[in-house]
């Protein structure tokens, strides 16, 4: 693998060099003749000039500076970095999907609508919900969508005073951010010594101001929320709603459904549980499910079948449109492919495999690393490097960076915020026993290594630790002449 730095496109430009030439057409006229000169630019855009081969090599070399699931185990907790099956990439590239224009008539897009209709139903069954919207582009947009539904629901019922959204202190940052964006007051409740929501601390908030409690289950600690039924009862008795952050749904596939636990709204991350690639940051999809009366508030449009034809329609009390067009459609195609390939039994085995792998890895690391909550975990678990930090001055970040030297991606670090020096590990079901063993052996080795070596890691990556303070203090966010 070439580890040398790759110059930017802008340093490789050569005036007059061409890459790909687009189709040309002689119409015998020039549109500029009909448009006022002050609207037109005579200067060509400032873009680099390279040959096709130069562009190809540039990006292939850049790619080689990355770790991905296909190159190594990626134990990034909360992100469910499982294998991304290539059949998904094939189906998402079928011309009948990839070339379909979003504004075409429903009659000319029946195959697309049919797929969406079935995917809605499958996700409703998997989560135990009554209705699904496929529109949100990611988990965070799903959260915001659901919270706008919550707001609309209470407005309609004349309960505008319900302004409070409660989140546990272990929640993901998007939960409080989405709640605040949707106009709610955010209240954070602590977790107890067991890692569950502290019921005593929650109680005072179960009142006429409560709009919604947002829970991740399994929680971001990788633990099944023991008090879930008590919590659901309490929230509902107070007239509130229960929201399920489905980032961790992978653990429960086929074994439990948020709907059966008392959740009223859910979002799923198709780019986690349903294997669509993360793409170095996106795109994903964050479908939202709703139960009972809330189905009427889903954003427009949803797909239904009327007289044998598939149609878009707007639910009765819909919050309206939350993005353009019909969702991250090609991501939906991938998730649908994944579900059809697995069927009910295959999905159940996915969940079980994920939980088995996590517990196995935990059993291998226990005794060598401090476990934040020593319980049977679900699909992931959290270690803490607090003692290591105190005794050896080796922090969670140091261990994470040292793993990079051994060719692994790092666990999620410093999240959830309630665990000091957190290392959150999620192996996923697609890692073999041999890989899990190699990873565990490496972790054990790092635990014994010279602290200096670990603290200064990584040593064998294309670059060493970056000066993030400088990046923020003097931001260079684009290439300019004179940079080097």
């Amino acid at each position, binding site marked *: 693998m070439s580890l040398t730095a790759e110059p930017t496109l802008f340093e490789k430009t050569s005036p007059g060099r061409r890459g790909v030439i687009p189709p040309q057409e002689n119409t015998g006229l020039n549109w500029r003749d009909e448009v006022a000169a002050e609207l037109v630019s005579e200067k060509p855009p400032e873009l680099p000039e390279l040959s096709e081969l130069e562009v190809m090599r540039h990006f292939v070399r850049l790619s080689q500076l990355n770790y991905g699931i296909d190159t190594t185990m990626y134990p990034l907790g909360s992100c469910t970095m499982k294998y991304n099956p290539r059949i998904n990439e094939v189906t998402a590239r079928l011309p009948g999907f990839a070339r379909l224009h979003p504004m075409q008539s429903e009659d000319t897009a029946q195959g697309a609508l049919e797929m969406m209709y079935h995917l809605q139903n499958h996700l409703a069954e998997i989560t135990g919900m009554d209705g699904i919207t496929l529109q949100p582009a990611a*988990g965070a947009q799903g959260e915001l969508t659901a919270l706008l539904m919550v707001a609309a629901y209470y407005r309609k019922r004349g309960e505008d005073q319900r302004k409070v959204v409660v989140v546990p202190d272990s929640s993901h940052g998007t939960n409080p951010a989405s709640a605040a964006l949707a106009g709610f007051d955010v209240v954070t409740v602590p977790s107890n010594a067991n890692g569950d929501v502290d019921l005593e601390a929650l109680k005072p908030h179960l009142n006429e101001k409560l709009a919604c409690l947002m829970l991740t289950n399994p929680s971001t600690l990788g633990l099944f929320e023991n008090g879930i039924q008590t919590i659901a009862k309490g929230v509902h008795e107070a007239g509130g709603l229960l929201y399920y952050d489905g980032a961790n749904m992978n653990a429960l596939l086929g074994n439990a459904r948020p709907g059966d636990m008392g959740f009223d709204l859910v979002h799923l991350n198709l780019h986690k549980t349903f294997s669509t690639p993360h793409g*170095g940051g996106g795109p994903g999809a964050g479908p939202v499910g709703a139960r009972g009366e809330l189905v009427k508030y889903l954003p427009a449009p949803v797909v239904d079948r009327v007289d044998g034809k598939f149609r878009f329609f707007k639910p009765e009390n819909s919050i309206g449109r939350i993005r353009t067009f019909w969702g991250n459609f090609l991501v939906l195609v991938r998730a649908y492919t994944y579900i059809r390939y697995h069927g009910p039994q295959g999905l159940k085995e996915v969940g079980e495999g994920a939980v088995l792998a996590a517990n196995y890895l935990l059993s291998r690391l226990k005794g060598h690393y401090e476990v934040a909550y020593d319980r049977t975990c679900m699909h992931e678990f959290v270690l803490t490097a607090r003692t290591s930090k105190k005794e050896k001055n080796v922090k969670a970040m140091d261990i994470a960076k040292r793993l990079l030297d051994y060719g692994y991606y790092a666990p999620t670090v410093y999240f959830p915020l309630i665990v000091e020096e957190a290392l959150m590990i999620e192996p996923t079901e697609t890692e073999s026993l041999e890989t899990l063993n190699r990873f565990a052996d490496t972790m054990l080795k790092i635990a014994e290594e010279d602290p200096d070596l670990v603290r200064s890691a990584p040593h064998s990556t294309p670059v060493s*630790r970056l000066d993030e303070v400088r990046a923020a203090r003097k931001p260079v966010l684009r290439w300019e002449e004179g940079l080097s």
Partner: protein
Amino acid sequence: MNYVPHTAGDRQKMLASIGKQEVSELFDSIPPGARLTRALNLPEQLSEYEVALHLEELASKNMVPSRLSFLGAGAYRHFVPAVVDTIIQRSEFMTAYTPYQPEVSQGTLQSIFEFQTMMCNLTGMDVCNASVYDGGCAAVDAVFMALSISGRHKVVVSEGLHPQTRELLRTYIDTHAGELIEAPLQDGRTVWPELNDEVACTLFQTPNFLGVIEDGAALCARTKEAGAIPVVSVGDPCSLAVLKRPGDFGGEIVVGDAQPIGLPLSYGGPYAGFVACKKQHMRRIPGRLCGMTVDSQGRRGFCLTLQAREQHIRRDKAFSNICTNQGLCALAVTVYLALLGPQGLKEVADASANLAHYFKKQVASLDGYKLVLNQPFFHEVLVECPGSAEALLKTLEGRGIVGGYLVEKDYPQYKNCLLFCFTEANGKAAVDELVNALQHAHRPLEGATRS
């Protein structure tokens, strides 16, 4: 089937290490009432071969003409070179996560930096983020930025902004206690109403939804006189290669969807929204930003930066809740722009605009068809049809042509008008075929009832 590699023997070893007999014991923390005791009611599993056939069958029910589609209306089909898809299928790009560990994510990070740079160059802005969900969401983000920067509450939006983006603004605006004021078009061009010191920003699109090139300089100047922030939404970003850039005519925040420059139509997503702005608004921009810095040995490197704006640091005080964005789509755009270069992108824009102007000439000479607007336009043309435009679309469909966009759904004042879009992917012969179909289509329709 599944992708779980654990053999029965593996499972035994793993369970033994954990100290359990059965995998099901690992789920004992789920209370009985919440545990699913039946199989999920889903269709039975298919083999990879069968699933491919099933999806092919679904895809074949959609109509996807290669050259004979004249729909634009916010999603544009341009030629995409083969290298783009080859690169975005590289495992190391496609199967990586958000670059939280920069030491092993320099490929993703540098490509984001290159995306930011090229989008800044195209728009004339100083900063561009690493992508947001789509162009509509980008416009919403820009409006929120302006509300928070200005401390004012009114948002004046042109009727020429994409109708779905206007719908989005209506969905989201209450959360920020903003007030939307819609500025109607006059002969297809935006005219601002009285702007006062309550106005946080104005927002217009150019080329606008009806294809018209707005007088950006005048619209931005009026906005700034009122102390408000001019937000510009870019219609089709390839137009930036040949039209004055928003940064040149006074825009301070520029948003849009980069789909037309590198991404297939994909039935509406995933695309790549972007928010770009002038330096003074930089610390209010939502989404990820990649910055250039050095590593501990002084070598050049890239990392995510100014993260104090984001949800994972600021939680309920964050400017935006975005986490997963449209990274791989932004990479496709980056590769596309590198391949096309300045000359290529200009040729794409010129070919598109020339075909549209060629069509305009032809259609104007057809019996019964009328050009609706008398304004400069880019690659979309609004045409009034003789009789029902909806019926005409059906007739064209029967001939394998995906006709224009029926604007009366969103602009009731333009009854029986179709918005036709042209790009280099159509070619002149396809335009001739469309003109021919239009000429012959309306005859049998004459006297037909209007819908």
